[in-house]
């Protein structure tokens, strides 16, 4: 099983860099998504204004989150939904496992949901004896391969067509082919059968509207529509930050999200689910359960700098734009959420103990901030986390080095002396062998600019 840990980020990254299949797949996918995003954003003359507006809506929702959540819960329950509150992943999984047991569920179909990846729901359900089938094609592929997703919206982005063909031959017994129509056809036939037999459908949520109690889920494959309408019981899992105040607010988000994620003007399906069916004779699930997950989000909400990360609408644009992600992909991060937003969210959700390398996995180039549809200042958040981590967890050598550095840089005489010392030392000591392994280091000048002046 390919579940890496954030603790071994550097080793993970090195292994990823040596994987030519991975790097080929990443290069194709991230540049394609990046180009499409650019074109789609350019198709709207007011892109910048939309970003500002979206962020303002999110800020409003987050600064009155208690009120909007209450409103959402009241409206959803009035329409027949049952809302559950989960403080953490274990509670969320327990709620869902209990629901499955109560309803004598054997087969569960799931649509793509990063929140249930975050809680590792599949493992919990399987441990309770349930059969869980992922129905998003990408998620289905990685479920067959027993791997975690490597991208927020394109979970199997790290796989080439050839690798998927081999997987389908091994796992589904189909004759070897790399014809995409045949591959997707086989997945479709297999999944249709699961939809027909499933007792419970589990989905995520893109937006939860306080005003109406509606949950909104967008997709392209139609599997979410089936997951949320065919089985007897529908369970929707959402982070508490997904709530937005008004139905009209969707206008701006439905413009931004598909364009930022896949470069589409609109996804193929938008499902609006408000409570359960009105009449017994109507089609659709008998029960709708909404699980509201906190899992560290209240903690993020409490701080004015970290709060902005809760505005994230999980489009994945920052991953595609990130030079680090483009080279190493998602698995190396060893976390459910990879890339720049993952490096920001993961330490806050999971704590910094095991994830302290992630905020340093960035050159701080700012490309993520440029593409973010809700204008999250990711570099600022990375710096904020670094300032929390370095003084406590930095190596003793690094902490001492910066103390010494500050002494030298605040004393011109010391600075000049160390400049001379550096010139002598550079003949004997390689500054950083790892640096020099890839690049020639520029030698220190025989005379500094200070010494050249006046010119």
């Amino acid at each position: 099983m390919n579940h890496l840990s954030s603790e071994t980020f550097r080793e993970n990254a090195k292994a990823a860099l040596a994987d030519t299949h991975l790097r080929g797949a990443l290069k194709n996918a991230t540049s394609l998504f990046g180009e499409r995003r650019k074109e789609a954003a350019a198709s709207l003359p007011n892109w910048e204004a939309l970003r500002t507006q979206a962020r303002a809506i999110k800020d409003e929702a987050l600064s009155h989150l208690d009120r909007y959540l209450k409103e959402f819960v009241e409206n959803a329950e009035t329409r027949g939904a049952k809302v559950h509150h989960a403080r953490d992943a274990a509670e969320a999984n327990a709620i869902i496992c209990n629901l499955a047991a109560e309803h004598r569920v054997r087969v569960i179909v799931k649509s793509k949901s990063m929140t249930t990846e975050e809680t590792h729901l599949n493992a919990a359900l399987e441990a309770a004896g349930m059969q869980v089938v992922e129905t998003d094609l990408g998620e289905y592929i990685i479920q067959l391969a027993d791997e975690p997703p490597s991208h927020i919206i394109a979970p199997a982005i790290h796989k080439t067509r050839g690798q998927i063909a081999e997987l389908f031959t091994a796992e589904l017994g189909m004759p070897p082919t790399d014809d995409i129509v045949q591959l997707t056809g086989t997945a479709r036939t297999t999944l249709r059968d699961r939809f027909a037999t499933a007792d419970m459908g589990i989905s995520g949520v893109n937006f939860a509207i306080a005003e109406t109690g509606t949950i909104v889920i967008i997709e392209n494959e139609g599997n979410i529509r089936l997951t949320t309408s065919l089985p007897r019981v529908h369970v929707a899992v959402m982070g508490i930050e997904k709530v937005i105040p008004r139905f009209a607010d969707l206008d701006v988000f439905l413009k931004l999200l598909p364009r930022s994620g896949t470069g589409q003007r609109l996804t193929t399906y938008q499902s609006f689910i408000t409570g359960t069916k009105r009449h017994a004779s109507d089609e659709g699930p008998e029960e709708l359960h909404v699980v509201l997950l906190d899992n560290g989000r209240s903690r993020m909400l409490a701080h004015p700098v970290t709060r902005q990360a809760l505005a994230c609408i999980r489009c994945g644009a920052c991953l595609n734009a990130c030079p680090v992600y483009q080279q190493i992909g998602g698995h190396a991060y060893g976390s459910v959420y990879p890339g720049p937003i993952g490096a920001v969210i993961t330490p806050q959700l999971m704590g910094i103990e095991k994830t302290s390398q992630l905020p340093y996995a960035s050159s701080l180039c700012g490309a993520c901030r440029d593409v973010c549809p809700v204008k999250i200042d990711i570099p600022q958040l990375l710096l904020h986390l670094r300032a929390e981590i370095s003084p406590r967890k930095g190596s003793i050598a690094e902490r001492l080095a910066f103390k010494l550095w500050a002494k030298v840089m605040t004393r011109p005489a010391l600075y000049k002396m160390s400049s001379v010392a550096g010139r002598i030392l550079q003949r004997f000591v390689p500054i950083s062998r790892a640096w020099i392994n890839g690049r020639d280091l520029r030698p220190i000048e025989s005379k500094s600019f200070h010494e050249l002046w006046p010119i």
Partner: protein
Amino acid sequence: MKVSLFVTCLVDQLWTSIGVSSVEVLRRVGCEVEFDQSQTCCAQPAFNTGYLKEARQVAQRFIEIYEASDAEAIVSPSGSCTAMVRHYPELFADDPKWLPRAQTIAARTHELSSFLIRVLKVEDVGASWTGKITWHDACHGLRDLNLKHEPRTLIRNVRGAEFVELEHADACCGFGGTFSVKYPEISVAILDQKIDAIERAGVQAVVSGDASCLMQIGGRLSRKGSKVRVMHLAELLAAGERK
């Protein structure tokens, strides 16, 4: 106009010709240039690595040095270091004594190309250089200071230089300060995308506004035995000075 040069520690120690060229260009456009011998660093290494206490100490020193100067502007041949100075108010956001001082210094500090075009309104400094040339957008200049057209305008006005756009000119070179030391393998993998684009551009030189990016790019080009040279914008603008 009287300007005070912040040469940056990198240029001071590793690439003095950038400082010399900056002075030449500034004088050519009519500036009186002063250089304070007590200057050191902008504090960026500590700020970016999460050592804010140390960053504040060095930033305070920077502020004191330039408060003592009556120069109208502080000019630096680095988008990255200028962006750092522009971040000073964030560093002192909770410090009512230092915040206004940080704001004043931040507002006085300019990156070279931005100073020439936005402040002095000079688009042609009378430089000449023969050959095919391209531009790498250094991240902080591009994204923190919004420098996109300024350097290109200056380069296009260099006599004899044929300017070509670099594929993905705005992509990071992978340097990122301590990032290049903490994760050298990733840093070089990112860098190689840039190197490939430069080689495909078929140029004699790649120009940028930051010595750090140029060290990164130049270090790899020389390791690979490439004939393409790296040049700071100040060096290009000082080239072939009119007599």
